[in-house]
């Protein structure tokens, strides 16, 4: 083992601190879309990962197109790609709700099976269109490398970018759900569907837009993750377990629960991983989660709805 100065040790601890925050932002961004769909509608969307992959592939397509037709715009395409991913995944989510999900609202367990089937279909479609091999969107230069506040501290720029994006999206979701008239409709529908209908809320339309919003946010997450991980037909399935873990642990119906849950899991995971092996860290995190869920089956923050 090398020998360290105090300064080196401090630097590593600072960087490790950022790893925890960075993982928090990744988990939160993954989980936001699912939290909206699962929390507000009670639909278990097993194809969530594939909607993320759809965002990632949209980014890849735009990267290729920009490089071919407008190489001088390479520095900016990524921002457009994020918006495009939101629109593509969101529109497809809208369609999915119309064709598939709306017929299954009274059979929540069947949505699980149907969306799982959808995820397989989407995976194979990615494979047929883009090939089985993984692809790599070319990242603009400003997203590469690291920021060095001192000589020995490296903060990954892509990590900071994901962090910023997560903050932006979370704020957007918060404003939309808790400060807008549409959000009021969504929350009303969640609490009492029949009564909401009776006072004139178009609950079907609310459902469709909520599902589309959740899928669109998954698309944004997919676009952002091309900077830190892989883009392949099955990349989405890498995220689905972690995503459900965050949402279930946080308490299904609460945005703050999702945030708190992502933060707790990220910190536990990254701190443990620094001291013990990764597999063991995962085991310990999951064990803790199970115990907490046994004590609080509703998750960290349960919604106070009269049952």
């Amino acid at each position, binding site marked *: 083992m090398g020998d360290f100065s105090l300064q080196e040790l401090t630097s590593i601890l600072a960087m490790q601190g950022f790893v925890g925050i960075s993982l928090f932002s990744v988990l939160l961004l993954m989980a936001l879309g699912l939290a909206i769909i699962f929390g507000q509608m009670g639909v278990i969307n097993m194809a969530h990962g594939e909607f993320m992959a759809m965002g990632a592939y949209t980014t890849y397509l735009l990267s290729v197109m920009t490089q071919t037709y407008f190489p001088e715009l390479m520095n900016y395409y990524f921002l457009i790609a994020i918006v495009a991913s939101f629109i593509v995944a969101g529109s497809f989510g809208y369609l999915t709700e119309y064709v598939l999900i709306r017929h299954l609202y009274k059979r929540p367990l069947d949505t699980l099976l149907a969306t799982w089937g959808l995820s397989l279909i989407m995976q194979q479609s990615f494979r047929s269109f883009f090939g*089985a091999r993984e692809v*790599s969107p070319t990242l603009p230069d400003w997203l*590469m490398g690291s920021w060095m506040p001192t000589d020995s501290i490296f903060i990954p720029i892509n990590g900071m970018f994901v962090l910023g994006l997560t903050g932006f999206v979370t704020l957007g979701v918060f404003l939309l759900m808790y400060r807008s008239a549409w959000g009021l409709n969504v929350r009303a529908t969640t609490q009492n569907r029949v009564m909401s209908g009776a006072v004139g809320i178009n609950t079907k339309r609310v459902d469709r837009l909520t599902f589309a919003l959740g899928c669109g946010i998954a698309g944004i997450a997919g676009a952002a993750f091309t900077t830190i991980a892989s883009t392949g037909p099955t990349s989405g399935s890498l995220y689905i377990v972690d995503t459900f873990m965050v949402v279930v642990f946080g308490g299904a119906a609460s945005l703050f629960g999702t945030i708190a849950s992502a933060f707790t899991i990220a910190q536990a995971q990254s701190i443990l991983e620094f001291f013990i092996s990764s597999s063991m860290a995962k085991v310990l995190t999951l064990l803790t989660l199970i115990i907490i869920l046994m004590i609080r089956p509703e998750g960290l923050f349960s919604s106070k709805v009269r049952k």
Partner: protein
Amino acid sequence: MSYFSRRKFLGKTGALLSAMVAAGFITSTAMAADYPTAEVNTTGLAVTDDTVTVGILHSLTGTMAISETGAQEAEKLAIKQINESGGILGRQIKIIQEDGASDWPTFAEKSRKLLRNDKVAAVFGCWTSASRKAVLPIFEQENGILYYPTFYEGLEQSKNVIYTGQEATQQILAGLDWVAEEKGAKTYFLIGSDYIWPRTSMKIARIHIEKVLGGQVVGEEYKPLGDTQFGSIINRIRLRKPDVIFAAVVGGSNVAWFKQLNAAGITSKNQTLLTLSVTEDEVLGIGGENLEGFYSVMKYFQSLDNPNNVEFVKAFKEMHGADSVIGDVTQAAYLGPWLWKAAVEKAGSFDIDKIVEVSRTGEIELDTAPEGYVKLHPNHHLWSKTRIGQWNRDGQATVVFESDLIEPNPFPEGYQ
């Protein structure tokens, strides 16, 4: 073109083999008649007077399709070339392709179908060790023969399998020797995905580093398959300050690992990294800019500069597209049909037992392999050279070191 490649193949193959096949070449049309079906096929395989049927068994769907695509493309190319040059014992090769679907029981079921119903004369296929282990009992039971292309952990030798990739010691020991000598490495950090191949490989690596090279392993880490967060491990690596990172991370994790390493400021400018699990195929997903300057240890790189390889790369791109890439396993898969052809012609028979018998003489060799001369060892593995490639931004590697031919040793004593 077919005439040329056939001549070239013949010209360089062993004297006995050349003489035998050349005789057939002169009377090309009469050749199948020289080998009556009743004589070359005594066990009821799918061999007729003018065709012989083989199986290709790879994953075309599911998570392994990423890796197995190249392998089956190369096998088809080799079979096409063999057919164009007159086939095998005067017979054209027909292919039955089955999809293993990244699912090990499916591999077993399809291999049983190929061997029992289709009676194929040989099977080219499998990629993961798990799929090979799943089909192995069936090949032994039905007495078929499998040409397996992937570099793997060793510790296996079956009568019914020919291993055309490297076993662990061929790849690892030469790589570690090079990095110890060339980079003066003393301390090593081992990292891999958490399953049998990386764990077996790292066990061999650790013993070699500690007992033979007199170095020190300062960390050994395994990441669950599919994990995409490497931040904490990267900080542990900083804490240990290893001279070399020795990596065997696979799949989607591999992409995340290199992207995050680069973003964290660990690049070839300040760190030596040698990996067992990056070929030209993986670079497509990882991005050349994230790998620039790091090293891979493999037996084959697409950039190898020899006439065989130049022709192979050209033919492969003609058949499968100009932007396709060729990795180590793809090349090893390409050897399968050619090695089978050499064995069949030497045995003068399609019978599995006779093919195995000549394969065990240690005299089956290929001069035309893209990787250079290879020879089949009686233990069913190939003698091959190990090379170190340094990655460039464009996704191709510059070969910086080439070993002598290394004897395959699937059961290395003192390394288990």
